[in-house]
């Protein structure tokens, strides 16, 4: 490592103007991320034209800070109202919202902050130390590898279901069914649009997520209008030390989730939604208490949020070293870098080493600053849990409506969101969970294009696809293990039969004396 370049970069990072950019970016990101439907992409797109007049490194630092703040902000509304600010925060809502209902909203929000911070730091460290290596790994991902990664992601649906696994799986298939609406990604054939040109690009994830989470949750709030969200009366605790201890207690989970987030972020096109759900599913699979997931287990929040933030940093790896953006936000940053004259690619680290280290420095600075603002912001946001639900319902409806309208600036999306809200309501009444449907919708669209490409590559031999490369083989094995663990967890009798020695050991323990 070039120490003189590091020290120069450190001085540049700590320039007052750069610190100001970080603060503006983090605060703007938190606000935009917390608004349902709004993602950092919109803010990045607005800022893009202004980057031309800014100092090159400062512009990129500002954009990195916005992404970092938005990653955290999305989790706030997911935890407080069960309405994820960003689609990637949907996994956080699974356990974060039940924690809020139990009066543990403070713990959930703080765990979100600390897990995001540590996830970001781990990803940052990997980014600094192993960017060239991971870039090579990212390049090894072709259509077959992506198809296998997405098939593995689909098995996570099994982890998201409640007691009735069949209904959960069906919900996932319904989501996959909706993902085929619109223009087919390979040949461009238009399918199932009912003549509506607005559906040519498919069902937008934001329309569906606002309908299935925000609007549906609003309807569920209506009968509870005279109560508050927190079922615990009085002041809601804000246990900073306890939350920090809870996060550090799950060191292995943090490391695992952060690595999942970083590697999935580095693989172009996979994105934070997949990262957070895979990390959540993996946390549930490996947990000693999987039955507590979905009922307010802090491990669920830690896993999804650390992977989510790590993914943001992970997506910078192929962008900086190869010039390949790993996500939409990374694509906008790439555009900004080209505008300001910093051309990313294989020569970026040799020609612009100081700039590269300064961007890395800005990344870690944004991570530190969002902890400070996150703690302050969360303290105020927490007060909403004690407000009467009747006061909140119209305001959340308004926010959800703006959130669904703003990205496309079209009224059509609002009606689609409403249809999804009604669909979600009917599904829940019939006992089908909606989260697997959302995951099916997100993954289905990406999976179809990669799957068909892989089919063409393997001359339509599906079996060949599973063993197309070492990565495919590893992912196939992991998929089989995940499916088996879902089946075993779902059948207590089978579990008892398979792990009979553990049972024997338990029954063989001396019984405590009875008084």
């Amino acid at each position, binding site marked *: 490592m070039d120490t003189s370049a590091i020290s120069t970069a450190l001085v540049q990072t700590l320039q007052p103007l750069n610190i100001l950019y970080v603060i503006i970016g983090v605060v703007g990101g938190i606000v935009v991320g917390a608004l349902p439907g709004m993602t950092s992409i919109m803010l990045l797109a607005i800022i893009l034209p202004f980057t031309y007049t800014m100092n090159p490194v400062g512009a990129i630092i500002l954009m990195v800070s916005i992404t970092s703040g938005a990653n955290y902000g999305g989790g706030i509304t997911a935890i407080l109202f069960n309405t994820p600010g960003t689609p990637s925060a949907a996994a956080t809502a699974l356990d974060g919202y039940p924690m809020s209902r139990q009066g543990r909203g403070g713990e959930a929000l703080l765990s979100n902050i600390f897990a995001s911070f540590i996830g970001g730091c781990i990803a940052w460290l990997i980014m600094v130390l192993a960017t060239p290596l991971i870039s090579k790994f990212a390049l090894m991902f072709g259509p077959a590898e992506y198809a296998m990664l997405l098939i593995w992601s689909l098995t996570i649906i099994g982890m998201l279901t409640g007691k009735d696994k069949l209904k959960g799986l069906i919900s996932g298939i319904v989501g996959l069914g909706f993902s085929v609406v619109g223009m087919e990604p390979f040949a461009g*054939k238009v399918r199932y649009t009912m003549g509506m040109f607005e559906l040519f690009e498919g069902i937008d994830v934001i329309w569906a997520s606002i309908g299935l989470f925000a609007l549906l949750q609003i309807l569920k709030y209506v009968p509870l209008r005279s109560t508050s969200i927190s079922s615990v009366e009085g002041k809601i605790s804000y246990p900073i030390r306890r939350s920090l201890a809870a996060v550090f207690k799950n060191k292995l989970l943090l490391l695992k989730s952060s690595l999942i987030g970083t590697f999935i972020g580095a693989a172009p096109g996979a994105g934070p939604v997949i990262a957070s759900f895979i990390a959540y599913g993996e946390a549930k699979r490996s947990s000693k208490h999987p039955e507590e997931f979905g009922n307010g287990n802090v491990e669920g929040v830690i896993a999804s949020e650390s992977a989510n933030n790590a993914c943001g940093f992970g997506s910078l790896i192929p962008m900086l070293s190869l010039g390949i953006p790993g996500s939409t936000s990374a694509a906008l940053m790439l555009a900004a870098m080209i505008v300001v004259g910093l051309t990313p690619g294989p020569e970026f680290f040799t020609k612009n080493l100081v700039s590269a280290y300064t961007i890395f420095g800005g990344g870690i600075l944004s991570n530190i600053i969002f902890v400070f603002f996150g703690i302050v912001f969360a303290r105020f946001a927490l007060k909403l849990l004690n407000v009467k639900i009747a006061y909140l319902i*119209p305001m959340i409806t308004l926010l959800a409506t703006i959130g669904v309208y703003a990205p496309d600036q079209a009224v059509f999306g609002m009606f689609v969101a409403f249809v999804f809200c009604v669909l979600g309501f009917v599904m829940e009444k019939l006992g089908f969970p909606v989260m697997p449907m959302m995951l099916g919708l997100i993954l289905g669209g990406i999976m179809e294009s990669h799957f068909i490409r892989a089919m063409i590559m393997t001359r339509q031999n599906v079996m060949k696809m599973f063993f197309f490369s070492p990565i495919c083989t590893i992912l196939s094995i992991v998929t089989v293990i995940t499916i088996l663990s879902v089946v075993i967890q779902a059948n207590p009798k089978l579990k008892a039969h398979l792990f009979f020695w553990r049972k024997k050991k338990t029954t063989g323990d001396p019984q405590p004396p009875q008084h």
Partner: protein
Amino acid sequence: MIIKISKRLTGAVLLLGFAVYLLTGVKDANSLSYLMPQLYAYLLIAASIGLIIQFIVLRKKDAQDAFTINCKGFWRTGGFRIFVYALMILAYYILMSIVGFVVSTVLFLFASYWFLSVRKASVYMISLAVAALLYCLFTFALKVDFPHGLLY
């Protein structure tokens, strides 16, 4: 009058309907463009058959499968309030296309609070102030052009 329906059976019927819709949209069964829709449709058919079998096997054992709707006292239940609020959201969206964002939002906020039995004038004022703040934030900072409506 109380209507009792089976969740599994209703789910199976709806899934079959969705599967049929996916299959009727297939224009070329051998094309890769329709591979995934067909795959999902067959999976949905298999799943709905699974639900029907579950319904037959567990019909008498699983009391939680029944979903009841009390038609007589429906207007007094929470379900009726949910239904009305859902209609209000739909009306808000339709109204927004006609009279624009500002007028429809003011009307929606007032109607919602009234429906939710909120009578405090301060709540109405604060909600209007927040709505105005959001409007300014999105219009001026985020450059969002809200619908003006057909009338303007």
